[in-house]
């Protein structure tokens, strides 16, 4: 075990000085980590509680420039003008898809802060890496408050050197999966995650099609594709992927999971959010294909 750092809170010093390590690993994962030469140091966590709102202050009625061709949220946006040339209180003469950069920034801040706090805790405990990372975000008590939590098991590599930049490597993997990753020639670099958020303010055509209306003003064949909605869905997934790729530099993303949620707000309006997470890995040895596995049938 590493010596206890001097600048930890008093309770943490006392806890760590006891000499017992803590770990979130299952027993099989714990055994596999020991096989890899990874010694658990401690169960580490990072938290960040964010005030959370989808509407941006100062954007009239929550719309980022609704009705204005000059709207700019600093990210993706597309305008959809009414093809009928109508101007009326009941007719949606303007529609827009736009990236909710303030939602994405809030998500990034919440995630990054909790991740950094977990990594700092691991570094202070003298760990080289964090395995079996789990990240969650959920609303607290219906107050417009979101809690971000990132946790995992800090480990030291037997005979290993401290990380060159002082920041431990991290991975969602643990146990046998991590062992197979290393055996396959990949080193874990860090977890990678991003969120994208796109708001759809429907124009008249999108509104009519989403409501199934066959109004003479719909300007679209009944049963046709809802272009504005499709473009928003495509954009939100593209943005999340691009943002993760930007984090990778020349490394790869492995075992990714993409989660997209759509909150329908009625009349074609919707808010889409896409979260993409995975393991950033780096190849440290040449590709050496394994022999073809032997198919087996279990007799039970």
């Amino acid at each position, binding site marked *: 075990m590493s010596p206890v750092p001097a600048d930890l809170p008093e309770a943490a010093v006392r806890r760590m000085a006891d000499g017992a390590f803590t770990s979130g690993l299952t027993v099989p994962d714990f055994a596999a980590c020991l096989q*890899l*030469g990874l010694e658990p140091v401690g169960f580490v966590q990072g938290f960040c509680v964010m005030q959370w709102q989808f509407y941006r202050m100062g954007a009239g009625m929550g719309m980022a420039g609704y009705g204005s061709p000059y709207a700019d949220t600093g990210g993706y946006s597309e305008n959809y003008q009414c093809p009928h040339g109508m101007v009326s209180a009941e007719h949606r003469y303007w529609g827009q898809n736009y990236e909710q950069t303030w939602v994405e920034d809030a998500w990034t801040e919440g995630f990054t802060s909790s991740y950094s706090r977990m990594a700092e805790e691991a570094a202070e405990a003298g760990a*080289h890496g964090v395995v079996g990372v789990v990240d969650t975000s959920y609303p607290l008590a219906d107050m417009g408050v979101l809690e971000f939590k990132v946790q995992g098991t800090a480990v030291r*590599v*037997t*005979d*290993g*050197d401290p*990380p*060159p930049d002082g920041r431990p*490597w991290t991975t969602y993997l643990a146990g046998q*999966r991590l062992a*197979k990753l*290393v*055996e*396959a020639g990949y*080193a874990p670099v860090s977890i990678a995650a991003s969120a994208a958020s796109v708001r759809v303010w429907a124009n008249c055509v999108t509104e009519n*099609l*989403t*409501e*199934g209306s*066959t109004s003479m003003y719909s300007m*679209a064949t*009944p*049963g046709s*594709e*809802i272009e504005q909605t*499709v473009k928003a*869905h*495509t954009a939100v*997934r593209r943005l999340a*992927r691009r943002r*993760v*790729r930007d984090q*990778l530099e*020349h*490394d*790869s*993303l*492995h*075992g*990714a999971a*993409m989660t*997209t949620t759509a909150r329908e707000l009625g009349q074609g309006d919707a808010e889409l959010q896409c979260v993409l997470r*995975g393991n950033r890995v*780096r190849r*440290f040895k040449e*590709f050496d*294909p*394994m*022999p*073809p*596995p*032997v*198919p*087996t*049938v*279990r*007799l*039970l």
Partner: protein
Amino acid sequence: MTTFLPSNDGLPTPEPVDLKAEMLRATRALGQATPAKAARMTSDLSIDEELVLHSIGWEPVALVTGTSVHSVPYGVWSWGQGEIKWASQAYARSFARATERIHAECTKAGAQGVVGVHVDWEINRHHIDVTLVGTAVRPVTWNGLSADPIFVSDLSGRDFALLHRAGWTPLGLAAGASFVYAPRRSMGTAMKQKGLNVELTNFTEAMYAAREAAMERMQSAALELEGTGVVEVKVTEGPMPFAHHAVAFTAYGTVVRLLAGEHRHVGARMVLPLDDPVRAFDVTSLRGTGPG
């Protein structure tokens, strides 16, 4: 760690790996600069799937997606007779357009096909949404030139490798759906059946009609891809929450064709696990919350 059984085809048993040394080597490599020529890959495959893909000479390239949403006109769910064609067509078009888009992303990524596609579809009263997410893959030695068409498949990396070893190839996704009204019973029939536990033949017949149409559409799509069959077919059936008087039947799967002269037996070995099942008891009985 991975256990390699001695195989029937004379393959050498790999040397045991010193995992501690490999882990040390991996973490030391993190201190070195990344080679600028290293390719950036994104994949949602598990490490097991990726290793199995490697074992047949394939590699993941990029995470790709395709989405489509088609409108269902107002009033089509009102009670009527026969098939609800608007809904059936909206499902078919959404599936086809989403497939085209994931196909296009695969081409752009320089891959040969997409495996492990998650098919996410939703039937709403006025729109049907289909989203496909998967990993584009290609042979490790691929030079970008191939006469083989790009395929999109919901088979896992493991199933794709097994299919490959058996001499088959996936060609694409085939889907079919049908939405059918359960016709109203006549007043006389309704009166006769009142209070009885009897078959509602109008519903049974609607279910059969929807099933036949959906399966036929999926099989026609398979033939259009020049496939010989469809594997891993997933079906759903039942009424929609917003239309209890109509039944939907959906089906999709991966179209396959035999590439080799004949099917190659993969020669699966039988294994008998010797670990006993864990026996446990219901701890709630100790808390006095059980019956009695």
